[in-house]
Each structure stands twice: as structure tokens, then as C-alpha cells.
């Protein structure tokens, strides 16, 4: 039995008809056609689906769309403005923090939230924060380097 759900996504009011069992990540990818948020697992471990809900990073596979009624959701597509990369995105590019790119949207969204919580994270703090984001390509070395640089750029 479909229900209507409404929320704000990337600054825009949206609404859609979904079955109650629809996950937020499915709503984002299929209803809204925002395919930057990815699905990499079925046990909520990989973090490829990380978005921001009301300002905090959340795995969108752990939320039903209907749980986000009225929420403010931001996906990877919201970070760059007018074609210019967000400082964290730019830091990933400068420091080769991505290879295949599949984990990257979730990784970047997770990193942006880390810096909000902890503007000058140490290497150890960055590695622990990323426990919920799996990357198979980079070995994390350059992701950590990117986040350090991104944090510095975000501190202005």
C-alpha cells in the first residue's frame, strides 16, 4: 500500500509515493534519480550510502524513506556549488583519495561531517571515524591524507 512521503533534499522540497518498506537510499536513487549515493552491501557496513540528515552523517540504507518525513537531507550532489568543488572534494582530488570512485560519495559525506564535529582531526581520529566506510581500492592512505587537507581547507 503506497504512502506519500515529503522531505527537503538538497534544498528542494520533494515528495513521492513509496511502499512503506522503501529505504531512504532507494527513494533517493530511484524516485529522485539522484544516483550519486550508492549501494555496496546489504548489512549496513560499507558506507557507500552515507548522506546527511538534519546536518549529521547517516547511512541511508538504515533509514526508511518514511522515517525521513519532513527531514532536511543532503546528498553528494549538494556539495559542489556552481560547478566548483567543495574544499573536501578538492582535497580528495589533489591527494588521490579515490580510484574507482564507488565508495567516494559516502566517504566524502562522512568526512565533511567529521570535520564539522572535529575541525582538526588527527590521523588516528580520522581512521577511527571511517570505520563505517569501506574502500577496496585506495588502502585508505590517501583518503586520510585527503581528509587532513580537506579539514585544513575547511578551517579556512
Amino acid at each position: 500500500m503506497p504512502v506519500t512521503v515529503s522531505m527537503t533534499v538538497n534544498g528542494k522540497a520533494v515528495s513521492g509515493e513509496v511502499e512503506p518498506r522503501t529505504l531512504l537510499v532507494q527513494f533517493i536513487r530511484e524516485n529522485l534519480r539522484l544516483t550519486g549515493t550508492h549501494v555496496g552491501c546489504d548489512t549496513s557496513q560499507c558506507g557507500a550510502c552515507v548522506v546527511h540528515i538534519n546536518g549529521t552523517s547517516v547511512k541511508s540504507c538504515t533509514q526508511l524513506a518514511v522515517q525521513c518525513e519532513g527531514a532536511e537531507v543532503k546528498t553528494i550532489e549538494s556539495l559542489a556549488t556552481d560547478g566548483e568543488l567543495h574544499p573536501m572534494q578538492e582535497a580528495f582530488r589533489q591527494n588521490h583519495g579515490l580510484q574507482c570512485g564507488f565508495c567516494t560519495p559516502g566517504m566524502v559525506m562522512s568526512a565533511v561531517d567529521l570535520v564539522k564535529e572535529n575541525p582538526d582531526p588527527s590521523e588516528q581520529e580520522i581512521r577511527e571515524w571511517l570505520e563505517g566506510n569501506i574502500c577496496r581500492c585506495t588502502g585508505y592512505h590517501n583518503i586520510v591524507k585527503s581528509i587532513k587537507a580537506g579539514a585544513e581547507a575547511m578551517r579556512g
Partner: protein
Amino acid sequence: MTSEGIGASVRRKEDYRFLTGNGNYLDDISRSGQAYASFVRSPHANAKINGIDTSSAQNAPGVLAVFTGQDLADDGVGPLICGWLIKSKNGEDHNAPAHPALAVDTVRYVGDTVAIVIAETLEQAKDGAEQVNVDYQELPAIAFAGDALRDGAPQVHDDAPGNLCYDWEIGEKAETDAAFDAAAHVTSLEIVNNRLIPNAVEPRAAIGQYDPGNESFTLYTTSQNPHVTRLVLSAFNQVAPEHKLRVVAPDVGGGFGSKIFIYAEETVCLWASRKVNRPIKWTAARSESFQSDAHGRDHVTKAELALDANGKFTGLRVNTVANMGAYLSTFATCVPSYLYATLLAGQYTTPAIYCDVQAVFTHTTPVDAYRGAGRPEATFVIERLVEQAAKEMGTDPAELRRKNMIAADAFPYQTPVIQQYDCGDYPRALDEALSRADYAGFAQRKAESESNGKKRGIGFSSYIEACGIAPSAAVGALGGGVGLWESGHLRFNPTGSVTIFTGSHSHGQGHETTFAQIVASRLGVPVENVEVVHGDTDKVLFGMGTYGSRSAAVGGSALCKAADKIIDKGRKIAAHILEASEDDIEFADGNFTVAGTDKAMSIGEVAFAAYVPHNYPEDLEPGLNESAFYDPLNFSFPAGTHICEVEIDPDTGTVEITNYTAVDDFGTVINPMIVEGQVHGGVAQGVGQALLEGCVYDSAGQLVTGSFMDYTMPRADSVPSIGVGMTEVPSPLNPLGVKGCGEAGAIAAPAATINAVVDALWDMGVRSVPMPATASNVWQSIQSAALAAE
């Protein structure tokens, strides 16, 4: 070196779309009118299928069709193939039991595909799949390679007696046995190379689509090699003739080998798309990936090293039982044979080597190439033996290696196991690694750890590998059913920009940047004016694809050959327009110049002239568009030394890597930033194998590690920072001098890590630790050693 040419750490062109969420991965693609597929998979490791009742499923809401193996057989769809013929010791071809895309009368592993359910929505397809009733008759199963050959073991295939796929050998048995008989010292080890699951973060997916007007097919697939997929689907599975089949591999989120192979799912989706006349989309759930992606490694080995009284290696004798899984995957047979045993000389001058390999079937997921494909297994055998020998003989492990290394002036070096190494300087990499790892200070660090109640160890891995695969004639002689050349096509546009069409495929390697750098350096066109196209069989000349660390060595070399043709043609055009003889035209930095004068034309001007040939050589065709197919002269042989330092808490068994140093010779380095990234990623996978990962089947063939809940993936807090150094000895065998770098980390790291763990615990009586060396396994090893000492 310019800011953009060979050797420059140019920032990647492909990053923009990946960082902004504008990648075009398979699951992001939707075809108008698409339907969705769900596969019915066997829950049993071994069972007869007495019947499949699809009637409920067919009548379920939204279901368009249900197909089984019988439907495929009725339509003449061929089985999934293995493309490498191995001959056993007795001269017989390997046993190659049929591998139908959907099981007909028997299922042979948990996850084996039995039926496809196609419906309007994914949820309806999944619900429909649950309504397919399969009457299984369970049978006993066998999962462990070491048990497959035993008398009375359950048989996986009637036409593979004793579960044997092949019994193959390489090297000189008599000579090697003699070396052992005469040896002053023999070191022996029993080694299990643990089964791994590739787990690229993007799950496999496919969309099959049929165009009834054209009678042609399109397959979108997460593939590392779309043309090979097209060839196999047409020639062997006979779903469509090649000229009526387009295969597109769009952005692919990691492969590591698992996306080379042609699997049941894309074969069936493609075939079924014509039956239902709708595009059919399938995306693996992660737990499906665990069951259905080709697994890696899974060797059981007995190995011995013979040394003389001075510590020189005189012989190496190896026996390996290699698990093929339930069916032969596309390249499975070559991995534990030609990609493994031909590397058993390592970096050393060992004169007598003999290896025999029994490849066996078990009721498990098919096993095939996974990052390193045979070379991690070989390196682990050699480097564990060398380290063990050093301990047993009381020699420093670095010095024992140095004593036996092939000298820098001994190349080309013919090993006793087919491979002929082109060039290298192994002692130099060893020295650089020792320095970077501060080997000299280790004793003090060990003492400090000891005073804190911790055990510190250091381990080496001086690896070599064969990649840049491979000379086609050699491949054919060894049983390979394909050539391993590559294509490169350069198309100049009239306004001077260039499109590269490459048969290589990038799924993280950065070819859109590095291949642009090659062309920038050869032709003087700025990187921003070079576009790289790959992954579409309609656009790109036939290519063999990306695996075996071959893209730069083979794909890049093909581009160099095409660039040479561009320069030759450009010279003719410039000579005509500048009114000079061809011999007087020099080409450098993007300009054709009349020698000794300042009369010049840029390559952009030459390109324009080629498309607007108003003043142009009479006998020359217009256009500036050249392609080349490049067949490598030999494998390439990256090599180096990795050093891993660990600190272990003996009370809990927890292993921490405090320092990891890699020094590698990859020949010419096109983009140092990207090459270092490949080393980081490879080392993380190698450390993963050594300390964290292990695919576990129980004795009934149930996959116990069926999701990320149970299979430990390396995470940011379990992988160290990695110090990377490079010693460049350009290969003389290809135009770029590159050797390939993608797999080296995964090849070297397991041995370095386990050698460090054993070193740390040696004085507690521990002599070996199984992989993965989890806290539990390490703690057990400590307890067992203590008990043995009593």
C-alpha cells in the same frame, strides 16, 4: 619531464564526476521499459534437482517470465567456458565438466544459479523467486581442497574422477631431487593460502537488452574486458553473433579480477531479454556477491628449500593442491599453474626447481584470478621458506636474500621455470627498503616493546612477479585460448584535440589521465585536449581488457605505436606544406620543424591540414587517425622488497602493524601519485589476507562467511600508513619501459606481514601462524607453542 608528461603526478581527469556523484555505474543506468531479474540460487552445496515447479512463480504479481536451465538448453545456449587448456603429467587435457549457466539436474555449490525470475519491479522479482519450488535431493559435499583427492570423498562431477581437474608439473624433478639429497640444510613448510572474496565495493550487475527491429543485442555489464565478454557470449554461449552484440562496460566500481569472467547472470539476462522483449536489469545484493563472484587463492602447499653449507639455495620443491571450486571459471586453470609456478625462482638463482599442482573440484564457489592471481601464492611460498631458513641457519634474513639474489648484471636471466626476467636490480631495492624501514634501529625498538610487555617482529618479502600479460604466442603454447595483445586508436579532430580509444578498461586505475599523459608526452597535445574512451565495443577496436597489470605495458604501448604512425604521417604533411624533404623534418614537443631553420608547424596545424587538405601531398589520404595492435615481446617483471614491522600483545594476540615499507621497481613511472595509490591499495589487500580476511566454508559446504558481518574487510583503522619508494629500471622490452604496478602490493604484503608475526613470536616457540593471523589465531599459536614446549 613536463608538468603533464611521463613522470608527472597529474591530478585525475575522471575525479570530477566521481566526486560530484555523476559517475555512470551500472546500477545508475535505467533503460526505458526495463524489467528486473532475481536469481533462484541453491541453498545446498550438493544436491540433485528432481524437479523445478515454476507455476506459482509464473503467476505471482508482476512476474513476466521464469526460465530454467532446460529453457536455455532448448534454445541451444552454450555453457560457461574456461579458456585455458592445461595438460596433466600423463599428457591428458584437464577435465572440463560442463558448466551450464542455470543448473539442470545438479547443483554443486551454495549460490549455484537454478532459475531466473523476471518481473516489473525488483521486489516482485524477489518475491517471485521465493515461489519457485525446487525439489532438491541433498547429497554429501566436500569443501576443502586438502580433502578433495581422498578415497571416498564426495564426487563433484562424474566426469572428473577423484575430483581431479589436472595433475600438472613444471621444472626438473630428477635434478631437484638430487639437490635435496645433497643439501646441507632443508627447510620445509606446510602452507595454506587462504581463500579470499574479492568484494569490490560495487556489486556485479548487468542489463541485457534486445532490439527486435535490428535483431541486435546490447549488454551493459560490470566488466573489465567488454570485448572478451562479447566474444565469449557469441562464440561459446551463442546468445548472439558478434556483429549483432554491443557490450558496454561503463564506470565500474573496482574489479580486482572478479569482473574479468563471464558469469551466468549476464549470460542469462542477455538471452532472456529477447524472450521477454524487455530490457532486463540485475544487480547483485552483497550476500549474492559473496556466493557468486569468483573467489581467490585457496591453495594447500608442501614446500621445501634446499641450501648448501654457505646458505646458497640449491633446490626448491613444491607440491600444491589448488581449489577450483565446483566449476571452472573463465581463466581458473592457468592461475595455480602458469601464473604461479613459473615465478618460483623468485629473485634468486636457485638452479633446480620442481613443482607439481593438483587442481581439484569441491562444492564451493568457483575460484579464479584475484589481484595477483598465482603470484601472491608463489611469493608466499618462497619468502616464508627463505625467512624460515634464515632463522634455522642463524643468518640475517636480509643477508640470506642478498647472497642469493640474481645480480644486476645477470640479465636477461633465464629461470628454471620458463620465465626469462628482462632486467632488475634487486639488491638496490633491498638496500633502499632496509634504509627506509630503519632496519638498523629494529633491535632497539624490539627491546623497548619487550620492556612494555609486547613482542615486536620484522618481516621481509622480496618478491618478483610476471605481469604485462602477455606474448600471444607464449600464451598459446602454454594452453591459453586467447591472444593477449592490446589495441590503441588515436583520432585527431580537425581543431587539434585528440580522442584515444583504448582496449584497456579503467575501473579505478586512472587511464583517462595516464593514457592522456602518454599521448601528451609523445605528441605534445595538452592533457586537457585529450579524451580517453574505453569500455564500449561499438566505439573501441577489439581489446583484451584490464587485468594482470597490463594496461600501461600493453595498452600504453599500443598507444605509442599509434602515436608513431601519427608522427610518420604528420611528417609527410609538414614536409609538403613547409616545402622540405621528409628527412629534414624533426618532431619534438608537438612541433614539426625543418631541421636547422625556424620553419615549423604545430601538430594541431598538421591535423587541420589533414582534414582540410587544400595544400596536401597527392598520394596521401586525408585525415589524421591511426590505430595499432601491440603484442608484447615478453611478460614484464616488477620486483622489490617490502618490509613489515609489527607489535603483538601476547596476552590477546592482537597484531598491530607499526611500520610498512614498500620499495618497488615498476620500470618507467607514468604518474607517481597513481602508482603509489596502486601500491597502497595492493598492500591493503595483502595485509587483509594476512591478518583479517578468510572465506570460510563448513564441512557441509555452507558458506559461513556470507556477508560483511562475518568477513573482515580492511578498514581505515586496520591498515597502516605505507611508505613507498621506487627504483626505476626501465624495461627494454616495450616502448614506455613500464613494468606494471597494480598487483605488486597484494603479491608482496602477505609474506612480509606473516614473516613479521612469526619473527615477533619466534622466541615464544611459535614457528608458523595461519592466515588470517587474527588475534584468536595468534593467541592459539602462542598457546600451542607453550604446550608443545612442556
